[in-house]
Every structure is written in C-alpha cells, then in structure tokens.
C-alpha cells in the first residue's frame, strides 16, 4: 500500500489545487503514469504515480486545495500480485486479473464502496459527482437521488462563498498588467470549458437554485485555477503594500528609429524586435543605480533585501490569465538575446508549459499593455517585489519642443512603488533615468554592461 502525498514540486509551494483526477478507484496504474493534475503557484503540473498497482482510494476531489504532504490517493501495490487482501479493501477492480479466464466469482467491493442503485450511479456520473464522496441518507446509508442533488447544491454554495470572499480582487482594473483588460473570447471559452462540470452540476439542479432574474441570466462560475491564484495574489499585494503610482511620458522617436535600423538584423536571426528588450536594458541600468527599487521586504524579520541580480518578470496575457515568466540575469543579456527569450517564454506561457522555475524568483516586473491600449494605470506590485513598471500605448502627440509645437511618438509609463520603502522622489528619479536612457538610446548603449 503506497500513500501518494502532494509533493513539493517547487520552491515556496505549500499548497496546490487539484485540477483533475485522471484515475478512478480500482484502476490499475503503472509507475510514472500521470494520475493527478495540480495547479500550484501559476503552474499546472501533472503528478505521476509513484508506484505500479491498483488505485485503492482517492482522498481528494477535483477543485480541492490541499497542502503539501496531504495524501492524495492510495495505491495498492500488492493488488496485481494478488497480495494485499487486508480487511475490506476499498475497491476490487472489475477488470482485475482473474485466476482463470472462465467463470469465476467476481469479488464484491468492500464496504467502503458507497451503496447506490445503478441509476443513481449513472446520475452521479452525469452530474460529474464522485459518488464515493457523497454520504447517503437512504436505508443502510444508500446514496439517493436527493443526496446527489444536496451534494451538488452544497458544492455550489461553497463556490459562491469563495467568489464573495475575493470579489473585490476580481473586480475590473485590478491587475497590474492589464488595467481594464477586456475578457477575451478565448479566455471565456477556455473558462467555460474548464468549468463545464460545475455548470452541468448547476444545470442539473436548476430547480434548486435560481440562476437569473427574469430574462437576465446570471452565470455563476467558481473562482478557481489560475484566476483564483491571481485573485489571492492581488489581495495580498494591495493589502500588504501601500501603493503609489507615478506616471511619466517618454519621447520614443529616436528609439523607434534605432529599432527600425536593427529590425533587418533581428529578422536575420528570426527575431521580432519589440521595444520591450530596450526597456529591460534601461530598467536594469536604472535598477543598478537605485538598488532599493530591486529590493523586497522580509515582513517576518523587518529586513530589506537588496538583490544584486536582475530577474525581470514580464507580465504576459495568456488564455488562462495573467502569467509572469521571468527573464533571469537580464543585465547579462544582449538586446537580441532578450528578444529571443521574451518570445520563447511568451509562447510557453500561452501553451501553459512554463515550469515553476520560469515563473519564480523575479526581482522586478514590467507589464506591457501598450499593444492593447490605455493611457495610464495603477499597476499592482507583484509581491514581494517593491515596484512595477507598466508601459502604455505609443502614439503621436503634439508636444512643445524649444517653444514650438511638434509631433512626436510619445509613450506613457506608470510606475507603482512600495511607499514603505521608496520615497516619491526616488521613484521619480528612477523613472527620469529610464526616460533619459530611452529617449537617447546612444546613452543606453554607452551605459550598457
């Protein structure tokens, strides 16, 4: 008998949400076969069976959030060899190898197989309810139709409570990367896809729960998965950190000209050269000059941690929600190297294939919403970092240069900073420096390490 516990799949992880249980009680599994999909800190990971055997018991359900060390399932490693006949095994697989391929007496399952009629079992499957999780109120503890409906309805109530607890965090304009980010059709359909079981569950007990008022339909979806993680993270950030946001504008003409000149070279390397790598380089130079911007606060010890490495997080929009892959040691990479890495990480993020290492350990975050639009924002800091820089839309504007109105490519940037640690003056000087480096890219190259 092997108890499979939620392993610590990465640094700092202490809990995970069970996204999917890929096996059922009684199912034979081989070692390293994926059995559970778990959502940890923004990464979904497939956990593999630690041993070959028969799944004896599943102790968690989809949607549960469990701590590291929690027993997820129990594998009977003796089942295949006919051992493990301890008192009342939970399950005897239907297709377990029989002694002989002729008429043998198939074993009834042990007492912990819940009692229910075949129809109720079918109904449970249709409602996507694991009948073993339902306590029966019928004779001798039989699970009845009514029990299933009660169970489904209780699940709904749980989901609703979660939503109301975090509702303000999930409200619009609450994400650092995407202020007023529209919900994309892709995101909706993905969410709908993910939440299908629950919707079905809701539909099946439509009579029990009003889902709308008159013609005005309210769709109820549980806050879970990456979205739930984001919401928790946002709540923590705004609760812990006193945010201040300062906005500035950059003249981008020179940088744009430079970028145009470099583009053909980038294309030779099959790279798409955006402004982002330049921003990263300028940012890193400024961070080195203002170490406090690349710090964090250890709330437990009241210490300031100044980091002498520059791991820059790039807030990325994915169908699953906001993900922040991290470019490590950005100060030691060329513009082209950065461009290549951004492209690679963004792709992995959209495919949901980022590893935990690729999204942790950042020291400063850039959120680039320019391509979508927006003039300014109050981005929320990616805790425990102490500042975040948002880049907005680049557009031609009338500006005054040497007493004359001229048209220039302008871009706003918004810097939110942790006012516990950073004073307004420091923050503005910091953005001034970035501005200086980008408005005259010659300077950027002169300063570049």
């Amino acid at each position, binding site marked *: 008998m092997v108890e499979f516990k939620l392993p610590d799949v990465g640094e700092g992880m202490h809990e995970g949400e069970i996204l999917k249980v890929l096996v059922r009680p009684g199912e034979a599994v081989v070692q390293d076969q994926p059995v559970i999909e778990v959502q940890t800190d923004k990464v979904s990971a497939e956990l593999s069976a630690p041993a070959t055997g028969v799944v004896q018991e599943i102790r968690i359900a989809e949607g549960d959030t469990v701590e590291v060390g929690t027993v997820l399932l129990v594998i009977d490693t003796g089942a295949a060899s006919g051992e493990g006949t301890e008192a009342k095994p939970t399950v005897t697989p239907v297709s377990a190898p029989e002694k002989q391929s002729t008429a043998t007496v198939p074993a*009834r399952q042990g007492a912990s197989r819940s*009692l229910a009629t*075949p129809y109720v079992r079918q109904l449970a499957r249709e409602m996507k309810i694991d009948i073993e999780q339902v306590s029966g109120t019928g004779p*001798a503890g039989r699970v009845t139709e009514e029990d299933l409906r009660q169970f489904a309805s209780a699940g709904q109530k749980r989901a609703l409570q979660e939503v109301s607890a975090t509702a303000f965090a999930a409200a619009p304009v609450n994400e650092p990367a995407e202020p007023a980010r529209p919900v994309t059709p892709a995101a909706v359909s993905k969410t709908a896809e993910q939440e299908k079981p629950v919707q079905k569950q809701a539909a099946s007990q439509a009579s029990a729960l009003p889902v709308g008022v008159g013609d005005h339909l309210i769709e109820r979806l549980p806050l879970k998965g990456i979205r739930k993680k984001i919401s928790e993270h946002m709540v923590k950030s705004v609760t812990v950190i006193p945010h201040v946001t300062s906005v500035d504008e950059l003249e981008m003409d020179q940088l744009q000209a430079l970028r145009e000149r470099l583009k053909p070279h980038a294309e030779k390397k099959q790279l798409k050269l955006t402004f982002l790598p330049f921003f990263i380089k300028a940012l890193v130079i400024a961070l080195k000059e203002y170490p406090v911007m690349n710090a964090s606060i250890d709330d437990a010890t009241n210490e300031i941690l100044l980091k002498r490495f520059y791991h820059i997080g790039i807030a990325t929009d994915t169908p699953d929600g906001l993900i922040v892959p991290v470019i490590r040691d950005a100060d030691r990479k060329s513009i082209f190297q950065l461009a290549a890495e951004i492209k690679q990480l963004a792709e992995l993020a959209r495919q949901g294939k980022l590893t935990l290492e690729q999204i942790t350990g950042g020291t400063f975050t850039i959120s680039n919403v320019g391509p979508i639009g927006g003039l300014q924002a109050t981005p929320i800091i990616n805790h425990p970092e102490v500042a975040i820089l948002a880049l907005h839309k680049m557009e031609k504007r009338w500006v005054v240069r040497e007493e004359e109105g001229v048209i220039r490519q302008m871009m706003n940037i918004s810097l939110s900073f942790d006012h516990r640690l950073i004073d307004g003056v420091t923050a503005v000087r910091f953005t001034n420096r970035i501005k200086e480096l980008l408005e005259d890219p010659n300077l950027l190259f002169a300063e570049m390490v």
Partner: protein
Amino acid sequence: MVVGEIAIETDVVVIGGGPGGYAAAIRLGQLGQSVVLVEKEVLGGVCLNRGCIPSKALIHAAGEYHKLAGLGKLGIRLPDGSAAFHMPDWQAWKESVVAQLSQGVEQLCQANGVTVVKGSATFLSADRIGVETGGDFETYKFRQAIIATGSRPFAPKALAPDHERILDSTDLLNLQELPKSLAIIGGGYIGMELGMALAKLGTSVTVVEAAPGILPQTAPHLTQEVRKQAKKLGISVKTATKVEEISRSGDQVTLAVLSEPHGREELTVDKALVTIGRVPNTGDIGLGQAGVVIDEKGYIPVNAECRTNQPHIFAIGDVTPGPALAHRASKQGIVAAEVIAGLPSSVDSPYVPYVIFTDPPIAGVGLTPEEAKEQGYRVRTASFPYRANGKALVIDERDGFAEVVVEEDTHLLVGMHVVGADAPNLIGEGALALELAARVEDLALTIHPHPTLSEVWLEAAEAALGHAIHIVNKK
C-alpha cells in the same frame, strides 16, 4: 498494399463481431457515429456460433432426452418404450437457431447504420486498419477503435487438437455422430457442461482434472450436487490427475494419466476433448503498430471506460483481463461506445453474475461466504433447499439449494448463489438485488409468485432472518 492507397474514413472501427463487438457497433450507430464493424467469420462470435448458443442447444437437447427416462413415474409412457437421439437432426436444428440469431444481429447492424465488413483486420498504425477481404485489401482511417477480437481455446502443444480425434469444444459441437467414449481433459465449466450433456446422450465420459475437484473456480459447497449427479450419470471423474501423454492409436485415442493414489494409468477412448482454458486473440492484429500494450498473458489492460493505453483505442470482452463471459463483453461494448460518443459511462459494477449449465446448473453473483470472510466481512449465510419448494417437486427437480450471504451488521446482501433447476434464470433476481444494494429484508418482504422456483430466494432470505416458513429454522 498499394502505394498511395485511399483510406475510407470512419468515426469508429470495431474489430470483432461477437457479443461485445456487435453490441458496441449497434450502440455507436444509435449514438450517431459512423461505424465499420470488421468480422472475419460470422457475426455473433464465439458466443453465438461456437460457444453459449450451440452448447446450450446441446445441453438442452440432452436434458430433454435424459428426462424421458424419468417420465414413466409421471405417468407418461413412450409407445415403444424407448427414445433415440439423432445427432444430424440436432445439428440442423442448432444451425437454424444460430442462423436466425446471426441474421438478427446482421439486421440490427444494418438498421443502426453499421457497415459490416467481412475480413481480417490488422492495425497499420494508431489510426488506420487494413482489412483483408479474400484477396482485396482495404484501409480504414478511424478516429477511435474498439478491439473485440475475443479468445480461442487454449491447448499446450502436447495436447494440440487434431480436430478429428482430439477435439476442442468447437469440434465437439460440430460432430455429426456421438462418440461412444469421450475423455475430457479439464473439468472446468465447459468440460463439465459438455461432459454431462454427452453422458446423458449415451456417451461414456471420463473427466480428467488436474485440480483436486471439478469446477475448480467454483466454491466446493456449490459443486457438490454436480459431483453427485455426475456420478449418477456414470461419468468417471478423475481429479488431481494429470495427463502425461496423448496419442492416437488407430481409430482411438490413448491418454496416459498420472495421479497420486493410482500412479500411471492408460485410458483409451474414441475421442478426447481438450478444454483447459482460453487465450486472448491479441497476437496477430498489429497491436504493436497501433501502440497498444498487452500484459504478459496477452490481455489488453483497460480502465473502467475500457480505454487501452492509447486513449482513443478501446478493448472489450475476452481480450481484456477478467472472466471470459459474453455478458461482460456486451456491457463493456456498450460502455466503450457511450464513452466514445461522449456520454458518462463506466464499467463500475463488481457484480458480474456467472452461470454454469451443468446438471444441476449453478449460478451466482457477488461473494461466496468464504470470499466474504477473506475480505473481512462478518457474514451470515442461509440456504433453502429445492426439496422444500413445491414447484421443484412438481417438476421433479429436487436437487439443489439457494444461498444468501448477508453482512451481519447491515443485513446487506453481499452474495447470492443458487444450485438447481433453472439457476441461470433465477440469478437475475440476485444480480438486481445486489445492484440495488438490497438488504436481506428487501428480499424477504418482496412478494414472490407461487408456485415458482423463485420462492427459494424468499425462503432463503427469511431463513437468514430466522423465520423461514417451509423449513425448520436454526435456533
């Protein structure tokens, strides 16, 4: 194979038209999938053509013939005092039954839009099969597939049938003439069913079984009546006996057998029947090319949805580990079809009833008392004998009993077994009771029709509660 061949596209291919395969194909048709069902012989598979149906036809005929001898005491006299069994007539009748059923399956397939292809299928890849149809070779591209190729009789080389004197069960059911003497190697259910039938028709039968008892997979207390009846029928049963050698000697077959008390003996008979097990047909259908894995015994492991390691390829019936029973295959076939069509379906019941058509027949579902105890249940058992049942006496079938196995604390039924006339029909009630998670009281409080054999369940349930009417209850 032609270069640049054109594959015919279909949603699902089902390989094998037995009770699992055709049920799957029909269900898929009902669910709107395009289905190609490939069968290399005749629809209906082993069950319909070489197994359940032909053997039960023989067992039924033998039973009716055997009854004639006992009809005298019921006041029935045969005009000339004797009866005869004409094997060729029986064969013709059996063929007509099989043909009717097989045509029925064909019509059902047609009515449900299933394309039936006669030929041998081989996987070419994970999404293609090739079908050889007597010289032609067609390829089919599928999105999902169901493997339902069944099993065949197993015989080690030393006991390989020559299909003339040394037979397998298929050969035996196709005989045009009854052998005078028959040795049956293997006292499992096929051996005992056919052995008892032939003994009733006048063949001198010897059963050689390596295990200490006949029907070794069945609880000994359930097989007792069969042992008694076998003796009455004059069947010589040699248990704990191994066949050392088998050889043909002219028109006869000689077996050298070895046992503890008797040492080596020789046994010469007209024909020998080898029934020692079955092996899955998984060897020559290109499973490797489809990436489907098999276990060391050749079975294809599947999950409760009947999926193989290749999630879009399913396997059902005798090719999967578990008892080789037609009703198991059919259930799996329907589940696989429903899963393919996106319905929530699962083989999630441990209650697969078994039926053995010996004399008397045995049937059961759930646990025997021994199995229940092994699994840690505290159980009580109660049984009710046929001889206390009015209908059993009326039809002159007084041998047998019905037994219920009840969990002591909850009174839930965990097993029901019956030995005696019509046991295979009676176990339907048992299967339903266990599926409905019935308590023994549910059985006892249900009005059973009188006079019927089904009352044995009522009385056994009442006996478990200590208040059977027609027997003296144990204090």
